[in-house]
């Protein structure tokens, strides 16, 4: 993005921001400036301090040191709302919209004085329509939020910020829930916005997006600003190194040698639950020695498929065969007994019990059998030996097997879950968002383990919202949309854009 405008005045200046939580320094003397009409990307792994920094900017936290200036005026520390009033708008990862109200009402909510409710709506509507036209944010002002797609809701969030005269826009992981096409549309909007003099902070850990939208990249690592580079003077590889602090090698799985079908779904349907769609007549084959990648926009039935393979749900229609045997009386325990290893999406709430020790968590799936128990009596020494083996083999960094698991980092927690799953010798592995929220070192480790399991003959189903991850790891790809499954695409046969068409729900009727 070139900046042709002369006005290079500074709109936001953070100087020496330091924030400590006990022994942890979340932000360590961070200083940077944001110019008018500029997009800077804030890049960093989870826990690098991005969120803390934005919370300080918005007055949710008070910085221990340093100050924030917006348009040359210092912001009072710890005053939520000051940043908003000064013209800083934020679009959160999780939207803050009321489902049962219209787009216009959501945009106006909180901006109108109570005693004039309903007054000046005509003017407000015209302003929203003008903004929508100028920035390419196509959305019907009278539509109910509940009826909108995720991409449309995000447009409403951006409109909301613009309506409040935001001159600085902060977007927190805005593409996490979008299809590639929606992402392109969002970037188009952002380019229009900077052309009109807005400034944007784009928070992300997706390198290719950062490369395509930003003019400058700030890299945070362990709370410190470790790099500030012009986007056109760097590349993805260099940025990744800055993020992690070390040379990284992308996983490159070798050619797969697929074997027998270990799991087959034929015409399986499950009911919807609340907002979550169920499965709609899904056919799926998982083959030994093959990673099947499931791509799709979040909330399109991936959860239902994961619950089905986990044993939490049973098919209401259709049949399910594991290793050629039709399953009956499906439950989490029978799923484990059928050799399905499950890596759950939410390792904190579903995968582990926070106040249980590593040992207690390690035997959660197998406690009812030797060597962990016999005839109803626990054998804690057997359980502890097993846990010590997992800690050793999977490099779980912890004080010992008696440690409560909530004291571990996400990566180490995931390694324990991997150990629990893999040590049971599964034939089929369900990996639901296995690397979400992990730092890059742990990501590589988990991905290598999945490939190793594949090479050892396991059938792996990888569910991920990160299309790059699906493309990198999968031998075959299926796309899920509204509970339907696309045909199987071989590795390399589809571009991200072509997959995006399927992710948006097109092509399914023809494929049936």
């Amino acid at each position: 993005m070139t900046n042709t405008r002369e006005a290079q005045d500074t709109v936001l200046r953070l100087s020496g921001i330091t924030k400590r939580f006990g022994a942890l320094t979340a932000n360590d003397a961070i200083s940077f400036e944001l110019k008018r009409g500029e997009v800077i990307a804030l890049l960093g792994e989870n826990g690098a301090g991005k969120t803390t920094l934005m919370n300080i900017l918005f007055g949710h936290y008070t910085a221990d040191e340093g100050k924030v200036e917006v348009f040359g005026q210092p912001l009072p520390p710890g005053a939520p709302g000051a940043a908003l009033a000064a013209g800083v708008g934020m679009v959160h990862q999780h939207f803050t919209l009321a489902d049962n109200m219209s787009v216009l009402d959501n945009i106006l909510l909180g901006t109108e004085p109570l005693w004039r409710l309903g007054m000046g709506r005509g003017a407000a509507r015209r302003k929203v329509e003008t903004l929508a036209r100028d920035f390419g944010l196509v959305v019907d002002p009278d539509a109910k939020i509940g009826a909108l797609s995720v991409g449309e809701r995000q447009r409403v969030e951006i409109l909301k910020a613009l309506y409040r005269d935001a001159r600085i826009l902060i977007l927190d992981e805005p593409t996490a829930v979008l299809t590639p096409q929606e992402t392109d549309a969002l970037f188009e909007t952002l380019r229009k916005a900077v052309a009109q003099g807005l400034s944007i902070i784009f928070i992300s850990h997706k390198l290719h997006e950062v490369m395509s939208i930003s003019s400058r990249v700030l890299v945070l690592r362990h709370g410190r600003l470790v790099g500030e580079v012009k986007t056109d003077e760097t590349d993805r590889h260099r940025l990744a190194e800055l993020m992690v602090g070390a040379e990284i090698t992308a996983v490159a799985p070798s050619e797969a040698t697929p074997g027998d079908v270990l799991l087959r779904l034929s015409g399986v349907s499950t009911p919807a639950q609340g907002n979550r769609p169920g499965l709609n007549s899904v056919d799926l084959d998982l083959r030994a020695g093959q990673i099947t990648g499931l791509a799709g926009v979040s909330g399109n039935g991936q959860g239902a498929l994961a619950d089905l393979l986990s044993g939490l749900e049973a098919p209401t229609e259709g049949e399910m065969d594991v290793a050629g045997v039709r399953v009956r009386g499906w439950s989490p325990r029978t799923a484990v007994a059928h050799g399905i290893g499950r890596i759950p999406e939410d390792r904190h709430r579903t995968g582990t019990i926070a106040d249980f020790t590593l040992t207690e968590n390690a035997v959660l799936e197998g406690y009812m059998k030797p060597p962990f128990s016999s005839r109803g009596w626990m054998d804690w020494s057997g359980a502890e030996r097993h846990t010590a083996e997992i800690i050793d083999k999977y490099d779980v960094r912890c004080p010992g097997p008696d440690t409560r698991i909530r004291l571990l980092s996400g990566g180490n927690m995931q390694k324990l879950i991997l150990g629990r799953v893999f040590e049971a010798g599964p034939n089929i592995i369900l990996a639901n968002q296995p690397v979400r929220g992990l730092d890059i070192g742990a990501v590589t480790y988990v991905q290598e383990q999945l490939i190793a399991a594949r090479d050892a003959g396991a059938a792996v189903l990888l569910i991920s919202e990160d299309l790059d991850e699906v493309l990198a790891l999968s031998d075959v790809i299926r796309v899920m949309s509204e509970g339907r499954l696309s045909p199987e695409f071989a590795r390399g046969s589809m571009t991200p854009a072509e997959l995006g068409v399927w992710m948006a729900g097109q092509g399914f009727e023809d494929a049936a």
Partner: protein
Amino acid sequence: MRLEPVANPTLGRSIGFPAAALALTVVVASLLTLLAGANPFETLGLILAGAAGSKFALLETLNRATPLIFTGLAVAVAFRAKLWNIGAEAQFYAGALMAVLLGTGALGFLPWFVLVPVMAAGAMLAGALMLLGPVVLKVRLGVDEVVTTLLLNFIMLLFISMLLEGPLKDPMGMGWPKSEPLDQAARLPRIVDGLRLHWGFGIALISAGMIWVIQARTTLGYEIRAVGQNPQAARFAGVPVARVLIKTALLSGGLAALAGWSEVAGLKGNLTLDISPGFGYTGIIVAMLALLHPGGVVVSAIFVAGIFVGADSMSRAAEVPTYIADILLATALLFMVLAILLTRFRVVRG
């Protein structure tokens, strides 16, 4: 101000705060006795003497502690699984009723060493069934067990009242609503001849030991803790959550019913409407003070019983109302709940 979890509570933290809670309780009680116009040191001394000052006082305290150990264990077992059994009172009466039904001649042909265990088993079954209904409703339909178990207490009390005014009324009872007395073979013998302490206390201690072993050593104990701490993760891992909750309920209801059986068979000899001065509800206090630990339940049951017994004898001597016992317990509980919170969380400003 907000609360921040403490990663690993130190020993000082986990003992210091509960100790401070007890000290604060004594301070509050002293202020209240001052208000009542008595010398607090003298009053507390009298409570202590009344609870443990003589062999007789001590045995009386242990006697009073017996049903509290059972109901305390019942509540502790259930609360571990986050099963909120507020119905120990109803289960107590179910056990007491069973003792009367089986012990007043229906099984008179059995020798005492068969009859006593049969009565205990019958009582446990009755108590377990009392809690089975609410738990099945919870597991199947999501009905809140706090409401159902609490309301069952009143239903059970009225049901017992109906029985004592009707079919179970003692014809020799001069018109009082009480049941016939148990046969001699159906009664629990005394541990010490001539003093009121009966074998119910011994059985309560054995029960506490058994619960301790179940919680620490068995798969059931492990399952109960898993379901209590994170039912979602437990279900995902393959723990049969509904079955564990039902087993927990059977155990909990059975324990509470043993309290009723032991009161009837060990102490009172018959069933009246006032046989329980709220043992079921006090069991909740006992369990909370014990941090749901079975060993702690024994200690806190004796502590709570001591306060009741001691306050009774103190009020006769010092003319301070016995309500002081309730106030002592209530403040002890409040401070203890706060202490538990403070062992696990740290108050941070800002």
